[in-house]
């Protein structure tokens, strides 16, 4: 293998490659295209992946929601169709008895599911909007972006039943002049004065829109006369707990506390974000797998093209190889040269493919920028995937180079020279 490190070997190969321009170009195009596609697909898959992940970014993914519905099985003297109402007592019981829970937050809303919206009045303008009653912990589960200078509901607000509110960006735009500072301003909600303490921006997960009003939970209960009733609760499991198990546990507990038949699946409704995220993750994993399969298949096709072209050129160069052998080239020298040509062609072509692919990804990234409509975010290729692919290209180049190299050696010099 010593000959690999000799300058002359490389000069011979350089000469052979340079002087066979057309075949070199065709060969290089094949592999360059393959690697280019490989990089591009991988990058786009990564971009999609990043984009999906950022959608969930503002949400703790091991989160579930539970609300009351109607029973479907008669139980313990109650007939079916009984309406379930979750209360603060349920929240307290779950908080003290289920270890898996990181946060448990009751929420109340009016203006949804048939309840009347809150009347919002500022000066001469008025409108009807959804009103939520919330604890500060909801911000830990579903992060809200608050405009400069404002804040979200905090613990003091709920403790002292303060009459403060956080309004959506859309409400702000409807009721305030441009650049007017809403913080500290007083507005009326259902006839009661509230102080505005913050304006929130809609986030990606956008499930509450940007036209809602947030009040401290306790204030909401009093104003809307809710007592201990709540609309639903948001539960985040501890990081290392399985949210699906937690969901089952919690629903079983609720059924016991509310005298519901253990098999009744209708009494309490729930939505498990963890499960949804797992589905998306599964989809993304599948897509990545497909990308790899397609990419690698394209690579192999490119390398086979190289082998094919080399095989043809070996036929073309039969006479040259015959002359070389008549002049004293040993079979291993001939074989070594053809194989090195193959390896170098694949390597250089691969490198070019990576450069073009990366440039295209960079271009796409620049073109898309922060456009939320296109689900591609920061498309990149993994460094180790690049190194791995390069190594497999060189390996494949070596293997595929073996065929023409062996062919070149197997032609006896006399036959090679006789060929016209």
């Amino acid at each position, binding site marked *: 293998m010593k000959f690999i490190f000799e300058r002359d070997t490389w000069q011979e190969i350089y*000469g052979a490659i340079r*002087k066979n321009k057309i075949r070199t170009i065709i060969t290089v195009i094949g592999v360059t295209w393959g690697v280019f596609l490989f990089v591009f697909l991988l990058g786009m898959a990564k971009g999609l992946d990043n984009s999906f992940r950022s959608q969930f970014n503002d949400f703790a993914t091991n989160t579930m929601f539970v609300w009351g519905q109607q029973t479907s099985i008669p139980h313990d003297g109650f007939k079916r169709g009984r309406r379930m109402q979750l209360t603060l007592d349920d929240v307290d019981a779950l908080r003290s008895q289920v270890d898996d829970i990181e946060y448990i937050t009751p929420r109340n809303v009016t203006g949804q599911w048939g309840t009347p919206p809150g009347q919002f009045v500022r000066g001469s303008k008025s409108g009807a909007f959804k009103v939520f009653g919330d604890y500060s912990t909801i911000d830990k589960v579903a992060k809200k972006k608050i405009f400069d200078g404002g804040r979200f509901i905090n613990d003091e607000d709920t403790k002292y039943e303060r009459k403060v509110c956080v309004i959506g960006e859309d409400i702000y735009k409807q009721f305030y002049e441009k650049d007017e500072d809403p913080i500290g301003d007083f507005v009326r909600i259902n006839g009661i004065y509230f102080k505005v303490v913050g304006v929130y921006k809609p986030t990606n997960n956008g499930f509450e829109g940007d036209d809602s009003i947030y009040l401290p939970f306790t204030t909401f209960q009093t104003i809307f006369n809710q007592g201990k009733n709540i609309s639903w609760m948001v539960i985040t499991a501890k990081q290392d707990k399985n949210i699906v198990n937690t969901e089952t546990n919690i629903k079983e507990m609720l059924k016991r506390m509310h005298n519901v038949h253990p098999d009744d699946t209708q009494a309490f409704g729930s939505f498990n974000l963890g499960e949804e995220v797992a589905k998306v993750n599964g989809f993304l994993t599948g897509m990545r797998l497909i990308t790899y399969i397609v990419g690698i298949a394209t690579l192999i096709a490119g390398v086979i093209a190289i082998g094919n072209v080399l095989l043809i050129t070996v036929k073309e160069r039969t006479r040259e190889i015959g002359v*070389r052998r008549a*002049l*004293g080239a040993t079979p291993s*020298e001939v074989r070594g040269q053809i194989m090195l040509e193959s390896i170098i062609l694949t390597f250089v072509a691969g490198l070019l493919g990576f450069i073009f692919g990366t440039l295209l990804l960079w271009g796409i990234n620049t073109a898309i920028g922060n456009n939320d409509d296109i689900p591609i975010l920061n498309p990149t290729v993994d460094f180790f995937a690049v190194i791995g692919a390069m190594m497999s290209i060189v390996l494949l180049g070596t293997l595929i180079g073996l065929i023409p190299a062996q062919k070149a050696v197997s032609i006896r*010099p*006399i036959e090679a*020279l006789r060929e016209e």
Partner: protein
Amino acid sequence: MIEIKDLHKSYQMGSNSLHVLKGIDFSVKEGELVAIMGSSGSGKSTLLNILGMLDEADNGSYFLDNVPIKGLNETKAAHYRNQFLGFIFQSFNLINYKTALENVALPLYYQRKKRKERTEKALDYLGKVGLSKWATHLPSELSGGQKQRVAIARALAADPKVLLADEPTGALDSTTSYEVMDIIQKINDEGKTILVVTHEEDIANMCKRIVHLKDGVIVEDKKVEQVRASQYV
């Protein structure tokens, strides 16, 4: 220099066996210039290929400079070819993407000579055939005679014991043929052993000895008065 005894060679043509060489006894001393003549099918090319270790005989012995040539593997044969033999072909067989100089230097490359030494020697031999000025030209930029002269320089570059020329003038007009023969004669004058396969009478007469082959046997082996090619140039 060359010792051949009872050399046999046959080719398998389908179910028939074609007996090409039927017992050749032949020897060449150092410094000889031998023409091998014969019509096509007489076996002269086969003989040259066996002498050139490009082909192997079925039977008989072959000594080159007292080294037995038998049962060589390709690697060994390549080394012997490189060390002992220089080839000149009818169709020149220059590598078309290498310059004249690079073509001449090629056997030295396979001898693992240093680059500087290769270039020096190659230039030297190009000068001997009068093509120093054409060193950087590609074969496609040379005339037929020039190509053959480059090929001769290449055959000489490795300083072989024997030069084997297979119809060296076959593709050239007579004036150019004489030029080439002139060079071959001059090389022979310096003491190099040369075998020339030809079917042209006048070319054969420019050698010192003519061996006639017919149907695989030597029918005539005579020394001749050498005609100097320089008088025609």
